[in-house]
Structures are given as C-alpha cells and as structure tokens.
C-alpha cells in the first residue's frame, strides 16, 4: 500500500507542474472535508467556497479524483449551500459530467460541475460536494479468525486534491468506534473520541497531496450484494408486487480456521464480532404479503414491524455471515397500487424508489425490472442519475402478447441512490377486462363443446353399414322400451284385477269387482292393440332377431297369464255369487293360482333378460 501511495505522490507532483498555470483562475478560499468511515462505505462531504480571482467569468468547476478512488466512486452530488443552517430544497443539485481535459495525466478522473450562473470576477460561491465510495476500505489483516476483530485501512490525502489553490482547509475523519490501531500523524493532527482531525492547513498550492492512512476497528456489516434483481410488477387490479433477489456476501476480512458455534453462541460479540446476523429492510408503509426465502425454501428467521410511516423487515440469513461467506435469498412484498401509481396528462406514471431498501448494503450490480401491464404503450422512464436501459417482454398469467418490461441496470449502487424514479406509460383500463373475459369465454366454449359433442353425431360416413346398424339398433331399442312399457302396464292391470279380488274378499262387493274386471278388460284390449304395430316392427327388423324370441315368449306368457287371471277372477266372482265359503273358493282357485304364480315368475325372468339386452 505504501508503495502505491508513493507512486501516486510522484504522479501528482508531476502534473502539478504541468497543470498549475492553466487552471489557476479560481481559488478555493475555504474548504471543510469530512470523511465518514462509520460504515463499509466512505462518505465524504466537502464544503468549499470558490472565488474567481481571474479576469473572465467562470461557469464550470473541475473536481478531480484519483483513479483508484474514482473507480469506486458510487455517488457524487454537488449542491449550492446557501448560508449556514438554511438548507434550501433539493433543487440545488448541479449537473455533473465526466470530462477529460487535455494534457492531463491518466491517474486522475475529472468531473465538471456546471454552475447555475456564471461566476464573475471577484465573486464567490459555496458548494457542497458529497461523494460516496465503496470498496476502498481494505481489511488489514485480510484474514482473521472467528475471535478477531476486523481492522480496516483507509488511505487518502490529508490535503484536498484540487486543480485550484486552497487557502484554508481542514479534514475530519469520523470512525465508527473510538478505537484506532494507527494513523498517519502530520502536523495539526488531533484525535478526539472517534474523530481524527487534520488541519487547518493554509495556503496550499493546487494538487497538493499528502498521503494518510487510518487503520481502525470496524465491525459494521460488510454486506455487499454481488447482484440484486428488483422486479416491480404492476397490476392494475390494485397491487404492485416487488420481488428482490439478493446475492450477498460479507466483503470484510475473510474468516480463517474453525467456526465454532459454541464460541459464537457463548460470546457472540467477542467471538463473532466481525459477523453480521441480520439486515433491516425499510419497506414502504402498507407493504403486505411479505416473504423471505431462498432456493431451498422459506427462511423462518425474520421479523416484521409496521407503522404508518414505514414497514420494517428484519431478516436474518440462515447462518451468521462471517467474512467471505456468501448467501442468497429473495424477499418479496406487495404494495397498494394507489400509493405508487399516479396519473398526469393522460398518462400514468409509477413513482417508486430505485435502490435497495436496506441501508447497509452496497450493490455491485443492480437490475431493476419494471413489468408493466400487458398492452401498455408510449413508455418512457425518468431516472435522476444515468442508468443502462433495456427493454424486454415477459409472459405471465394469461398473457397473449407479453408484458413490456423496462430493465434498468446500474453498477455500484449505494443507499444514496434510493431516490424516486418515474415510469410513464399509457394504458387503457378496459384492457383490464381482457383476461377475465378470456377465462370466461374459455370455460364457456369448453362447456359448449361438451354440449355439442354430447349431442352431435360425429359419424364420418352416414351410409356405412355399421352406422345403419346402429340407427336400426336405436330404433329397436326404443321399440323394446315401448314394449316393456306396455308389458308393465299389462302387469299393472293384472295387479288391479288381483286387488279387486282382494277387495271383494274384504267387502264382498261383487259389482265393484265386476266393474273393475270390465275396466281391466278394456284396458288390456287397448294395450294389445298398441302392442301389435310394435311387434310387427320388431319382427321386420333384422336387428331384433336376437331379442325377438324372448319378446314373443313374453307376449305369449302374458296372454296366458291374462287368461288364467280372468279365469281366476271369474271363478272367484262365481264363488262369491254362489256364496260359497272361503275355503272352497281357495280350493277351486288353487290350481289356477299356482299356474299364475309360475307364469308371473317366468314373465319376470323374461323381463330381466330383455332388460339386460
């Protein structure tokens, strides 16, 4: 490390000589730099007062960063500070672009800040430069055991690196804990608590550089997400579904040697100080259906609190995260649509935050996918910082043409990027009904096809032998059914006659019995008339050959039965008229009765046989 710094120093001296005359119009009259090392990110806040000492007007200011810092620069914002204590809106963020002035050596990256108004001769302006760096804290030593504390080294210059001369400047380094292993001692260096103060240094020429190193204790979580994919899916049925897949590792000092659960459980803050147990995600208020899982299932170690301002989700990875350990998980939650979707000028727009809801996580690559409803048109995106933008199509439930997906990619994302961005699109509310209608019509047609199939005749050839045979068979079946019907009615009539006989035995009313007999006779005649065409049809039909003998047999049996019944009836009535005793009647009828019983049984058997056919 020391060698690198030495090289840099040489470099700076080299281009100090080169550039000094070019940019000397501006002078920084006062500069306060605060470096916040209390998390894994390095946040520097520089308040500077720029004076134009030159002849012409100046509208741009150059901010250089050494390359080794610039490659880890995640966030840079310049605002105008208007007096102390008064912070005026957020409108003050000034446009910044990357430039490469000519004749500059390669070890510096330049950012050009455009001032809102030109700076005339002798005028001055106060600016606040806020920069966030990731990955520039190096664990030293790089490997520690479970029981060790994590030490980090931070290197920077004690003087502000600037192409302009600086009159007065100070540097304050804020540490997470008042524990410093070592730090570079320069003149005017003070340590108070967890702060190290360098300066004030006065009247330094441009490109002054003095390396400093701070070696300090930091057990803050070093959660770095290699990749975070946020999928924001809008459903106009009232839900914004956010799914975030994390691929996290602990980017601090690697653990070496044994991991003992015993030690970790007994003294978690001593043996396991460098590990982090949990992360807290700050979700928007009224987040619902929150889940936390990974590829092998739900992770049960999570807590959720909510109030009207926010929802806090505390998640614990499956195991404590020691240096170098990795894990991956997914959290998902639903948000009420009306909180995030608005309308303006005939367009709808989604207004939702860009970054990750966890404050302590650095994201190396963030992919935000916004899935718009199927049928969205005229899509445009407005993001407050440069991102890589792509478009995709996603097919989800019941989609026909797919949903448009806007993919925004950004590397090196820090919590400062957690700003709102907007996606504008046009969407017709009636398209909402498309999918339910599709379902309804789908089921409708399913049932219709079923009905049609049940009723339609799908025979290919209407003249084929088998088809004709089938038709005939159907006819025969209907005929047989009718035949059975008639036979049944005959049987009913027989039963009636029997019943009348029984009535007779009870009441002795011969006339009623005779009347019944008459009615039965006429009914039977009618039935036999009805039976004739059926029988002739069955005889003519070739399909009925099998069944015909049984049918005829049944008819014959029925006839016989009828005769016998009549005989019985007349005998009984006779007996009654002659006032014979019950016993005698029975004797007379007995033989007939036996026959009847036999016939009946045979008829029933035939019935069953015909039924089976």
């Amino acid at each position, binding site marked *: 490390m020391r060698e690198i710094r030495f090289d840099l120093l040489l470099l700076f001296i080299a281009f100090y000589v080169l550039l000094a005359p070019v940019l000397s119009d501006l002078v920084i009259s006062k500069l306060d730099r605060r470096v916040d090392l209390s998390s894994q990110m390095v946040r520097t806040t520089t308040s500077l007062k720029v004076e134009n000492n030159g002849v012409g007007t100046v509208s741009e200011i150059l901010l250089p960063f050494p390359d080794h810092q610039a490659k880890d620069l995640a966030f840079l914002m310049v605002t105008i500070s208007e007096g102390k204590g008064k912070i005026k809106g957020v409108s003050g963020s000034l446009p910044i672009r990357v430039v490469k002035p000519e004749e500059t050596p390669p070890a510096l990256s330049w950012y050009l800040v455009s001032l809102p108004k030109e700076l005339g001769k002798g005028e001055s302006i106060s600016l606040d430069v806020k920069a966030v760096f990731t990955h520039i804290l190096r664990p030293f030593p790089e490997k520690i*055991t479970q029981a060790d504390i994590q030490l980090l080294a931070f290197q920077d210059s004690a003087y502000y690196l600037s192409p302009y001369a600086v009159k007065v400047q100070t540097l304050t380094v804020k540490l997470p804990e008042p524990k410093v292993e070592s730090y570079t001692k320069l003149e005017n260096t003070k340590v108070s608590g967890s702060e190290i103060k360098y300066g004030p240094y006065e009247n330094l020429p441009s490109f002054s550089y003095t390396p400093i190193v701070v070696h300090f204790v930091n057990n803050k979580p070093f959660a770095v997400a290699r990749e975070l994919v946020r999928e924001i899916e809008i459903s106009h049925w009232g839900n914004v579904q956010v799914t975030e897949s994390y691929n996290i590792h602990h980017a601090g000092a690697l653990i070496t*040697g*044994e*991991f*003992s*659960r*015993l030690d970790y459980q*007994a003294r978690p803050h001593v043996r396991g100080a460098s590990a982090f147990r949990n992360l807290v995600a700050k979700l928007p208020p009224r987040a619902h259906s929150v889940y936390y899982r*990974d590829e*092998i*299932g*739900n*992770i*049960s*170690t999570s807590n959720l609190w909510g109030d009207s301002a926010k929802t806090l989700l505390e998640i614990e990875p*499956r*195991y404590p995260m020691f240096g*170098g*350990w*990795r*894990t*991956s998980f997914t959290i998902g939650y639903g948000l009420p649509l009306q909180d995030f979707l608005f309308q303006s000028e005939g367009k709808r727009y989604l207004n939702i935050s860009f970054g990750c809801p966890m404050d302590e996580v650095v994201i190396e690559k963030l992919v935000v996918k916004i899935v718009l409803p199927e049928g969205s048109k005229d899509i445009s995106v407005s993001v407050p910082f440069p991102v890589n933008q792509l478009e995709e199509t996603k*097919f*989800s*439930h*019941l*989609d026909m043409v797919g949903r448009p997906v806007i993919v925004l990619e950004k590397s090196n994302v820090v919590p400062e990027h957690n700003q709102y961005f907007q996606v504008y699109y046009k969407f017709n509310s009636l398209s909402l009904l498309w999918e339910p209608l599709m379902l309804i019509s789908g089921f409708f047609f399913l049932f219709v096809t079923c009905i049609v199939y049940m009723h339609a005749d799908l025979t290919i050839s209407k003249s084929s032998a088998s088809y004709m045979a089938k038709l005939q068979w159907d006819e025969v079946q209907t005929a047989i*059914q009718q035949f059975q*019907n008639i036979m*049944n*009615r005959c*049987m*009913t009539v027989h*039963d*009636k006659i029997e*019943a009348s006989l*029984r*009535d007779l*035995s*009870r009441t002795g009313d011969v006339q009623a019995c005779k009347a019944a007999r008459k009615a039965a006779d006429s009914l039977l005649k009618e039935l036999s008339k009805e039976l004739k065409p059926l029988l002739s049809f069955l005889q003519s039909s070739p399909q009925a050959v099998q069944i015909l003998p049984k049918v005829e047999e049944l008819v014959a049996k029925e006839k016989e039965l009828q005769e016998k019944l009549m005989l019985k009836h007349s005998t009984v009535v006779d007996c009654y008229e002659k006032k014979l005793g*019950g016993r005698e009647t*029975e004797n007379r009828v007995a033989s007939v*009765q036996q026959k009847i*019983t036999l016939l*009946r*049984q045979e008829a*029933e058997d035939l019935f*069953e046989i015909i039924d089976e056919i």
Partner: protein
Amino acid sequence: MAALETPQSSTLRQAFGNVLSVFILLLIGILAFSIRLFSVIKYESVIHEFDPYFNYRVTQFLTKNGIYDFWNWFDDRTWYPLGRVIGGTVYPGLTLTAGTLWRILNSLNIPLSVETVCVFTAPIFSAFASWAAYLLTKEVKGVGAGLTAAALLAMVPSYISRSVAGSYDNEAVAIFALIFTFYLYIKALNTGSLFYATLNAISYFYMVCSWGGYTFIINLIPMHVLLCIVTGRYSSRLYIAYAPLVVLGTLLASLVPVVGFNAVMTSEHFASFLVFIIIHVVALVYYIKGILSPQMFKVAVTLVVSIGLIVCGAVLAVLIAMVASSPTKGWSGRSLSLLDPTYASKYIPIIASVSEHQPPTWPSYFMDINVLAFLVPAGIIACFLPLSDASSFAVLYIVTSVYFSGVMVRLMLVLAPAACIMSGIALSEAFGVFTRSIKFQLPGVTQNSPVNAGDTGNVMQNDVVKTEKSEDSLKERPSRKNKKKEKDNVERASVVPKTEKRLSVLPLEASVIAIFLLVLLGAFYVVHCVWAAAEAYSAPSIVLTSRSHDGLHVFDDFREAYGWLRHNTEVDDKVASWWDYGYQTTAMANRTVIVDNNTWNNTHIATVGTAMSSPEKAAWEIFNSLDVKYVLVVFGGLVGYPSDDINKFLWMVRIGGGVFPHIKEPDYLRDGQYRIDSQATPTMLNSLMYKLSYYRFVETDGKGFDRVRNTEIGKKYFKLTHFEEVFTTHHWMVRIYKLKPPKNRIRGKTKKAKSKASSKRSGTLKNNPWH
C-alpha cells in the same frame, strides 16, 4: 296416466342422479386435494423428507435439459467416485408427470416454479386416485359403493401419509395408477371390450413407469384370472381382459429403462406368463369343446393332456434350471423379503435398516386405516352376495394386500385403497339395507309394513307399480282374511325372487339406531383423518417445530447447514455423510456426496459406515482416499432430536461390518447394550461418529448431558487431530467438519518420536483450544 309420465320422470331422476354424483365426485376431489394442504399451511410449500428431494432434483434436471438428456443423465454428484446413471435406474413416471405438468402450465403462460408443481403433484393425484377408486368400486358394486369408497379413500390416513403436499414421491402417482389399472382390468372384464383392455395395458405401463410396486399388479391379476378359471368362470371376456395386458403390458414395461429385460427375466413376472399359457390352453379347450361332439372331445382331451403335460414339463424344467442358476432364485431382495419376512434381517441389513421396511404394529393399522379395519370383513361378506368376477377380484385384492401390509409397514399403502373399497361396499350396502327398512316402515308409506314389505319391494323394481300399489295398500284394512293375504304376499315374494331375497327388512328402531351408529362411525373416521393429516403426517421433516410455553419454536437446522454448504464450499467439494442425507445434500446443497438414499451399492455404504465407526486416523485415511473434503453428521443431543446419527450408528457398524470384518458389532456394545455414557466401550468412544457428534459438547452445559440418550456422555474432553469444525448449526443438529490437509512427509515414517513431536508442534501452531 302415471304410466305415461314415468319414463320421463325416471330419466329426469337419472339425470339428476348423474349430476349429483358428478358433483359429489368433484367435492371428493376437492376434499382429497385440500386435506393434504395442511403441510403447506402449517409449514410451507416445500419438498418433504429424503426421497422427494431426489425426485425434485431429477425433475429440475428434466425441465432444464429436456427428455433426451434425462435418459442419458449420468449423475456425477452422487456415489462419488462411481456416479450413477439416473436415466436408467430411476422410475421415471413421477418425474415425467410433474415435468409434463410444468411444461403444460408454462406453455399456457402460467409461471409456476418446478418446486410448486412438484409440491402439489401428490394432492392432485390423490384426487385422481379417489376418482379411480370410485370407478373401480362402481364396477364392483355400483354407484353408491363407488362414491362411498371414493370419499373414504380421499382421506384415508395411510395414503395421506405418502401424499401430503410436498411429499413428492413415487407412491403419490403410483397409487392412482394402481387403482386405475385395476379399474380398467375390471372394466375390460365386465365389458369384454378390447378398447378397455388396451387402455389397461397403457395404464399398467404408467404404473411400471411410476413404482416398483407394479409387480403387485402383474401378480395379482394373474392370480385372479387363475381363480376365475379354477372356479369355472372362464369367459371370452376374461381372455380379452387378460391376454392383451400380458402381451402389450410386458412389451411396454420393457421399454422402461429401469425394468428393461427384467420384465421377462425375473421371477416376479413368471406368474403372469404361466397364467398366460394356462388361459390359452383353457381357451383352446373351450373352443374345441364347442366344435366337437362329447365323445370326440374326450379323446381330444386325453391326447392334448398327455402332449401338454410333456411340453409343460419341459418348459418348467428349463425355467427352473434358469431360475435356480441365479443366487437369489431370480427374485430381487425386496421381493424375497416380502415372501419371507425374515429374509431381510438375515441377509440384507441395508433393507432391514430402513424403518419403513419393518413389519407394522397393531396400532399402526388403527392409525392408518382406522375404522376401515372393522368394516373390511363386512365388505368381504358383501362381495360374496353375490360373487361376481369383479367382486372376487376385490376380495383377492384385499386378502393379498393385508398379507403384504403385514410384512412391510410401507405396503400399508397398497392395503389402504383395498380397505377403502371394501369399506365403501360395506357402508353402502349397510346404508342401503337400513334406509330401505326405514323407508318401508315409515308410517306415511304403509301401515302394516312388515307384511307389506314384499309388495313395496316390488315397487323398487318398476315405478309404474309403485303408485298404484301404495294406493292399494293405503286402502287396505286389517281383515279377517289376513292369512290369505300373507300367503299371497309370500307368493308374491317368490315371484320377484332376485330383489326380494336380498331384501332383509330390519325393525325400524334397529335400523334408525344402526344408521346413527354408522354415521357416528363415519364421523369418527373423518375426525381421525383430519387429525392425522393435520398433526401426524404433515411435518416436512426438514423443518421441525416444537411448541413450548413461549410459543412455536422452529428448528430449521438442516436447511441452514445445506445452505451453508451450498454457498460457502467449492462446487466440486465432496461431502461425506450417512446415506440418509445423501439426497438432501445433492438437492439442497448441490454438492457431491459419497452415498445416498438409493442404496444400490452396499460396499460403498459399508465404506462410509466403516469410516464412521473407525478411530479418527483410520477414518481420515478412508475419507481422504475418497477425496472427501467435508464430513456431515447429524446430532440431536443438544435439543433432543431422536433420529440422529448416534442412534443410527449401530446400523453403520452392522453394514460396515458386513463388508469389512474388522468392524465388529460387539466392540461397540457393552454387554449387548448400546450406550454412550462412561460405561461405553473404548472402541465406541474413539469412533469418529462419537467424536464428531460430541466435539466440545461438554462445554455447552459443563456436563455433556445428551438429551436424546438421557445420559452424560462417556468421553467429555477430547480434541480432533485430523478434522476441524467448520460449521455447526444453530441448534447443533448438523455439524460439518473439514478434513485437515495431510501433513508433510519430509520427516519420514521411521522416526516416530520426531513425527510425534512435529504433530504436536503443528497442533500448537494451529492454535488449538486444548493447548
């Protein structure tokens, strides 16, 4: 009159009945599906236990790489260094089913994950299974019995235990395939339709794809055919139902890679071929009988029998010679242990070591089929009244499955559908009798009902009579000619013998009470099933919960360990553990394992068992030779998780000792007792398993009290020289150790003292806590 209306009203009634039964079936399907969701609601949508994880992994592979890669899949993540040809050794039915389901859903743009599809495959197929049970029972005893059987099957605990959501195992689809194959067989038998016979063969193919239990089908159906032939029930329908099944079914079965030539080579299938020959002989005999005169037939019989005997004798001799030449007589180990229940414990400890291969206990019958156990005999009796081809099959099915379930607790699953069908028949018949009795005796219908039961029995047969007759009987008054009427009734009864003989009428009070009791029985069954589904069978076994005074406590240690392995070890690292955790390690941690739950290589398992039973150094050498980097042990002593490795340790010793004789079981037992306390043998206390389980355990409470064994451990303070702890889960249930790299050999082996010193020094350098 009424006679004209009846055909219409009866078709209407029939249509209404059909709609009602379809509706009931739908509800039964929903019931079968939703009663299995307790695991998802109480825990989560996750794959359960051990084997399902393998199936899940295979399905993932199938959906990712397609069917052709699946058939050719050589899995190098398991059985290291041997590997395993998954495509050729796995029953692909379940995987293909879920894979197809997933593909269909995705082609319809329904983005379900493979895991979700796998989790819900089993409940979906249990709904199918209950519908299949309806069809089968309908063929045997009619719609009422079918519906009852379907409802019973939808919630029989034995089947629930294997098909809760997440239990993604072969049995989940195989039970459906089993019942459906039986249904198609019976359907083909009843109709004599070649169409159903072909469907039957296809369904049998699906069953072969799904589960090794297909041998049950291919033995049961021939048994039934034989039974039919012996009892003189041979018909052309029987031939049509059976012959295509054997021909097509065997051809199709040999298409499944895992079965292949086994379909014609192993003894499990011989019965079907034998019966195939017999049925042809019988068919021929019947044919010849038809065309010859009786005298000629007799001559022919003597001729054919003499020739046939010679041929059969020759064939049998060849078969016996072939079979006898193989050591297991052509039977696989599992089949043999079915035929001889003591076989496994005598010869194959690996089969005996699996708890589901043990014979069941009596309470497990009550737990798994509950009241069905009491209803089954009634169902069997009902099947004999009258005995048809279909009902004789049902009886045969229940009898054989009762035997098999008595041998292996796992085969209780085959018994469950049979018990449901039988109980369905019994309940339906009982309800039929009781409701009929009540119907005839209700005051509104008849007055002197017992006498008139015969008349109204007639009513059941045709509606035409009904109206007239009931009018008549309403008019009737008790008369002096009672006697005659009784006689008349008796005669009437004999007129319609078939329906009325069966119609035994019970007293009104008795039938009301009996119905009440039956409903109570059913209610008890439902309560028990819901309880079993909710409490007993829904635990996914990878997540454990315990209820204590301060609420629910979740033990998610297994996934913690697998998650750790997955993310924090190299992709090619090999993990050694007892074979129980092999499938889970490959599926959840995605790391190569030495042995897994597919216990096909006994020697390899014995090697791991030997390593676990050996002292540290020997174990290290074994593991190092297998290129193992991590060793995983499951330890329940801290939280009282009983099925941990220490409790399984004796099986490791037995299986290891079965192959490597220097491991002797008595060395690990003190006076025949397995113990880990201070009385334990030194071999036990020095074994790797003991050391890995109890490493630094004593420091948790100062005494080293094991909550599973309820004793203080024997050896408390020791250090590991060849292994180092790299991860232990929150409740210590899984402990992962890493093999230390081998020491430099520069000092040579001859100078023992020096090497000892060096090892000591290296120990201190490593900052061992015991120094």
